[in-house]
């Protein structure tokens, strides 16, 4: 392109079709025209095809009665009276539930495995490496099917339920946990927990400011523990322990009472946690290895103990490297939770793109809404991520 410009300087104006600006405008115009033509054709075809198949369009179905049952509902829902819109929210909440639980569990397991891979213990490091290599190279769908069909479905049936410590039962219909009963006065405990959390946060800020100003360290860990655990516990005791548990009872044909966790949810959580943890382990390992050796050596030569070195020197620097890919693993986990459809856990895709789509036949609207939900989650996460990145990015001189 620069050649045209020099030539132009020597011989006067170039032909208009050789002007890079005009060319670029022409290319863009052609591209937009082609895309517009394709979109127009697609819409025209869709309208035509929908009319021929007598499928309604628009979002009128949102308020129509759903008429199908969902096996796990976090908000009140009934097949007779609830609408498709309600079913959408039920599915979305189920997706968020499994994603939230999965993220917590996968982070814990992933950090453990990642650190184990760097352990000086040869056996542990090799086992962690084996775990990562095997799990990463087997499709998640296969792992989900394995956990659901080969493990959970071959558990004993209700009569021979496995009794777990703490009054829980496990059988091929799921996991039955003691259900908490919140008695009168529990609200104050929740309020106390909130107050404690805020106080701990405030104390942490104050301690950090003071340390930056004077160099004195405050016992942050203990104070935080007292605020976050001690305060609610004390209020809990003062109000006379306003909590009881409804233990599941093993009956002949069913387990009565308690809190039932669907086998689909258990399988999905197992699969997602184990699969994502392998990826998180690699992220953690790479992050820790990215901290230059000199940092650790300098900390040791200042006389810091290994534990303090890890906490004050290595981890803060590693987190800068770890957090962005970790977030994308969280997003992957959320997107992968849509594989629930293969084992019948009622997540957004199973409820909405599965049942609602089949009942209404409104493919365009249903798929568009589903995609929009995931897209929103992704975009919001990357927005938050960008803000975080800007805050922790190395300030280069």
């Amino acid at each position: 392109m620069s050649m045209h410009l020099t030539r132009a300087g020597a011989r006067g104006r170039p032909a208009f079709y050789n002007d890079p600006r005009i060319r670029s405008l022409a290319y863009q115009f052609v591209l937009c025209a082609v895309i517009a033509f394709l979109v127009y054709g697609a819409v025209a075809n869709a309208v035509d095809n929908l009319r021929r198949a007598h499928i309604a369009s628009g979002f009128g179905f949102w308020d129509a009665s759903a008429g199908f049952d969902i096996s796990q509902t976090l908000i009140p829902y009934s097949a007779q009276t609830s609408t498709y819109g309600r079913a959408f929210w039920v599915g979305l909440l189920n997706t968020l539930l499994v994603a939230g639980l999965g993220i917590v569990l996968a982070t814990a397991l992933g950090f453990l495995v990642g650190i184990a891979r760097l352990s000086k213990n040869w056996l542990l490091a090799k086992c962690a490496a084996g775990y990562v290599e095997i799990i990463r190279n087997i499709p998640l769908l296969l792992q989900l099917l394995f956990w659901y069909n080969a493990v959970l479905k071959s558990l004993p049936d209700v009569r021979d339920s496995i009794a777990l410590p703490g009054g829980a039962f496990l059988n091929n219909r799921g996991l039955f946990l003691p259900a908490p009963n919140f008695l009168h006065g529990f609200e104050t405990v929740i309020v106390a927990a909130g107050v404690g959390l805020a106080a701990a946060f405030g104390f942490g800020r104050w301690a950090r400011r003071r340390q930056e100003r004077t160099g004195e360290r405050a016992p942050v860990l203990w104070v935080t523990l007292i605020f976050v655990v001690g305060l609610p516990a004390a209020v809990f005791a003062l109000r006379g322990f306003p909590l009881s548990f409804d233990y599941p009872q093993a009956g002949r044909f069913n387990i009565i009472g308690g809190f039932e966790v669907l086998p689909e949810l258990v399988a999905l959580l197992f699969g997602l946690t184990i699969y994502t943890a392998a990826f998180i382990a690699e992220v953690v390992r790479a992050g820790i290895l990215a901290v230059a050796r000199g940092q650790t050596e300098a900390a040791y030569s200042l006389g810091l103990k290994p534990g303090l070195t890890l906490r004050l020197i290595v981890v803060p620097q590693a987190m800068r490297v770890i957090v962005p890919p970790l977030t994308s693993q969280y997003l992957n986990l959320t997107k992968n939770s849509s594989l629930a459809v293969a084992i019948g856990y009622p997540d957004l895709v199973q409820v909405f793109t599965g049942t609602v789509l089949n009942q209404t036949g409104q493919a365009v609207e249903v798929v568009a809404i589903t995609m929009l939900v995931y897209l929103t989650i992704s975009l919001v996460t990357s927005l938050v991520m960008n803000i975080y990145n800007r805050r922790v990015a190395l300030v280069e001189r």
Partner: protein
Amino acid sequence: MRRSAAEHETTEIAFVRRTPLAPQPPPKTMTGALGWLRANLLSTPLNVALTVGVALLLAFAVPELVRFLIVDAVWTGEGRDACLESVQHREIGACWPFIWERLPYFIYGSYPIPERWRVDLFFAMLAVAIAWLMWLDAPRRDLGVFYAFVVLPICAYVLLHGVAAFGLPVVDTVLWGGVLVTLVVASVGIACSLPLGIMLALGRRSRMPAVRLLSTVFIEFVRGVPLITVLFMASVMLPLFVPQYLEPDKLLRALIGIALFASAYMAEVVRAGLQAIPRGQYEGAMAIGLRYWAMMRLVILPQALRITIPNIVNTYIGLFKDTTLVFIVGIFDFLRTIEVARIDPKWATPVTSTTGYAVAAIFYLVFCYGMSRYSRAVEARLAAGESR
């Protein structure tokens, strides 16, 4: 005075070593197997505990695995009775006769038996293409690219789908299945995603705002949604968007979905490679008068793609695993054939599912682990220049 006292003292010493001692070997506990054990397994109490814990876990898991897969496994038999504990009166491990009997189904799906040589020929041609492209010192790799991206797709279509004029009866894609479908989906995804991904990556870095905007929107949109929804879109929405007489084949719809999905991820990988090329390379190419496409083809892309080979292969691994998702939109890939066969009443036993899944796991593990070893080998080869 002082000196004589010192002399007096030295005479008192009975023995003074005049020659240095020969170096002694390090203590036995610090070298060899024992030293290694001490340093790597038993250095601290925590390490001892970890070692014992992991060893116990392995001592439980490994024999159990060997027992299931080999010792207690059933190797021959006809039908489910061979693998039933109540009939055989012994512990039953994996049910291999189920796999032997169903192997053709796992490989070809319901492809007509007299036509299966066509699939075999396709497998052979695919193997040649893969070997030619993966062997970095192979002769005439440019011909290899031509073969893999032009000759092979045409031959594969003629062979697998069939063209009546060539005397090859048409085999409907509904009958395709098993490893055949998995490899077809993966190959199409691999072959389409790289060129498409390169175009999208160049588009995203283009100076034309419309091109940049369209590429960015497409990439971010596809990467923001799960593959399942893309497949649903391809399988239920695509037929609406085309005229009715053009109703695309079910497998083709899934292929389009996979190719679009993979190309968005590939675009980001290629973009990272493009960003890693120093500005001087672009400026140098422009300074010698290369136009945009010539600059990309001759200067930038060869370097960018070279450093991204490991990441490209990693994307391919992800793609290979993702091919299992076509299962959900009703295509009989390898995993689906396992899933169908395992609930067949003829082989219904408590161990059938686990056996089927074990075979599937080994299949995917071999392919994906192979690819990841390859990518690491390439990485080491590329890094050789920098380690000098």
